[in-house]
């Protein structure tokens, strides 16, 4: 065996396969290019895509939505071009706050829209994550959704900024009842159910297979607890599946202006946003987004050893993920 053969063998031994995350570098490359001057004409299809991607966000416009102010004090630096949006889906029932006056964050998402507005990444943050909360959330190690419970959207905003080091430009909270209306305005969403569901609590009954869910069914599906392996992560996957299905459906149906109007009207009242996030800003964001499918990822976590029902962020993986979004 000559030295070149041995060297080639050694090379093969040292080689690693490219990970799926490599695609982020593609985005990084395209994100590096200078932004074109002037707004692209906003097509309804593009807006529709954004509607579905940024789940309830569109809904900001009008004067009826509740507003919160941006956090104060020291905050992560603004990165030119990219926009990060925090989306909190809460599980209080509209009008009947079962949980007292606090609302629990039930779905916590960070939507990253890069400068070129193309490859949107949606990061799900497990609500059972044990994290150090800022003063507004009690200042202790606790579940991340306690921040919403104690300090509302603004406190969750601060918490996520501190944990990720990412500047969050806008924040939106919506109730699942808004989600229900949104799905109905789309005419339902089509998803695949891997095994039959019969959940007495939510009265959700579904057969196995591909089917169209109504708003009510979709919400029950997203919140189902005793299904799959019963974990929060499993639920996150279902929520991601649902969002992707909504993005698809939105692209098909919302090119019709009448339907888009219905859609916006259907959900407008159920959301809270920050003051700077109006419909115009939203449409601006939507401009370059048409046709792209968002990437859904989850913060890497592992079981929290003092309590197996909770998780903690896996480092340095989590930090690395957020670094790629800078």
């Amino acid at each position, binding site marked *: 065996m*000559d*030295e*070149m053969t*041995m*060297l*080639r063998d*050694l*090379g093969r*031994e*040292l*080689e*690693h*396969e*490219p*990970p799926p*995350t*490599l695609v*982020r*570098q*593609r985005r*990084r*490359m*395209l994100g*590096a*290019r200078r932004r074109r001057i002037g707004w692209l004409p906003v097509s309804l299809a593009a807006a529709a895509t954004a509607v579905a991607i940024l789940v309830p966000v569109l809904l900001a416009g009008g004067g009826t939505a509740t507003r919160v102010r941006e956090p104060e004090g020291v905050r992560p630096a603004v990165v030119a071009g990219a926009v990060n949006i925090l989306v909190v889906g809460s599980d209080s029932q509209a009008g009947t706050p079962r949980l007292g006056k606090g609302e629990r964050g039930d779905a916590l998402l960070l939507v990253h829209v890069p400068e070129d507005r193309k490859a949107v990444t949606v990061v799900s943050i497990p609500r059972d994550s044990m994290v150090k909360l800022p003063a507004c959330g009690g200042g202790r190690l606790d579940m991340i959704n306690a921040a919403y419970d104690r300090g509302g959207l603004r406190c969750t905003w601060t918490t996520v900024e501190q944990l990720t080091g990412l500047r969050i430009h806008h924040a939106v909270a919506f109730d699942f009842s808004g989600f229900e209306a949104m799905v109905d305005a789309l005419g339902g969403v089509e998803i695949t159910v891997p095994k039959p569901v019969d959940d007495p609590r939510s009265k959700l009954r579904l057969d196995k297979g591909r089917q169209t869910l109504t708003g009510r069914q979709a919400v029950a599906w997203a919140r189902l607890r005793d299904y799959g392996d019963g974990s929060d992560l499993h639920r996150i996957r279902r929520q991601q599946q649902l969002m992707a299905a909504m993005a698809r459906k939105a692209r098909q149906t919302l090119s019709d202006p009448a339907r888009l109007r219905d859609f916006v009207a259907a959900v407008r009242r159920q959301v809270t946003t920050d003051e700077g996030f109006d419909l115009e800003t939203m449409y601006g964001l939507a401009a370059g987004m048409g046709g792209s499918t968002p990437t859904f990822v989850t913060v890497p976590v592992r079981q929290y050893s003092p309590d197996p029902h909770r998780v903690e962020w896996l480092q340095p993986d989590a930090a690395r993920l957020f670094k790629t979004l800078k």
Partner: protein
Amino acid sequence: MTAPPITRVEDSDIVRRSLTEPEAFATLFDRYSGMIYRYVSRRVGPEHAEDLVGETFMVAFSRRRHYDLNYPDARPWLFGIATKLLSRHHRSEAARYRALQRSPVEEHVEFPADAVAAGVTAQAARKALAEALAALSKRDRDALLLYAWSGLTYEEVARALDIPLGTVRSRLNRARRKLRAELGGADPMREEA
């Protein structure tokens, strides 16, 4: 039945198109990011490989106006950029070779009867190889590994490193000589060539 003509869009066409449509450049990423990843992962390990691939394509993208459109194949150009960027990671690369010199790694041996002898030999040889790689000058190592690990020809290595063909030959000869010397010393069962 006649097969439809296969027309390959050359890399140079993609670069040309990307001058007016920047998004077109993504096709080059799709074609070669995996290949560049494998190469740099060999040299500096997976911890830095992803970032390096990203940087390689960012540099390539920003320098696409300087691409010589007479070359249809962009691989040497991309490997050249990656090689330059690799030099920033020389510490990780050196650490990798040092680790190889220390740690035993499972060997796949073709003839079980000779497993013990072959295993010992292969392992000793690997250590010697790692040692020799670490001892090479950066220039010689770049030329050698581009040729051995990326599948480029001599001409393409010359283009990647922007050096004359004769220089590639001399660097490769020197590097191979050093490898042989190191291996000869490590392997008593090896016959003199």
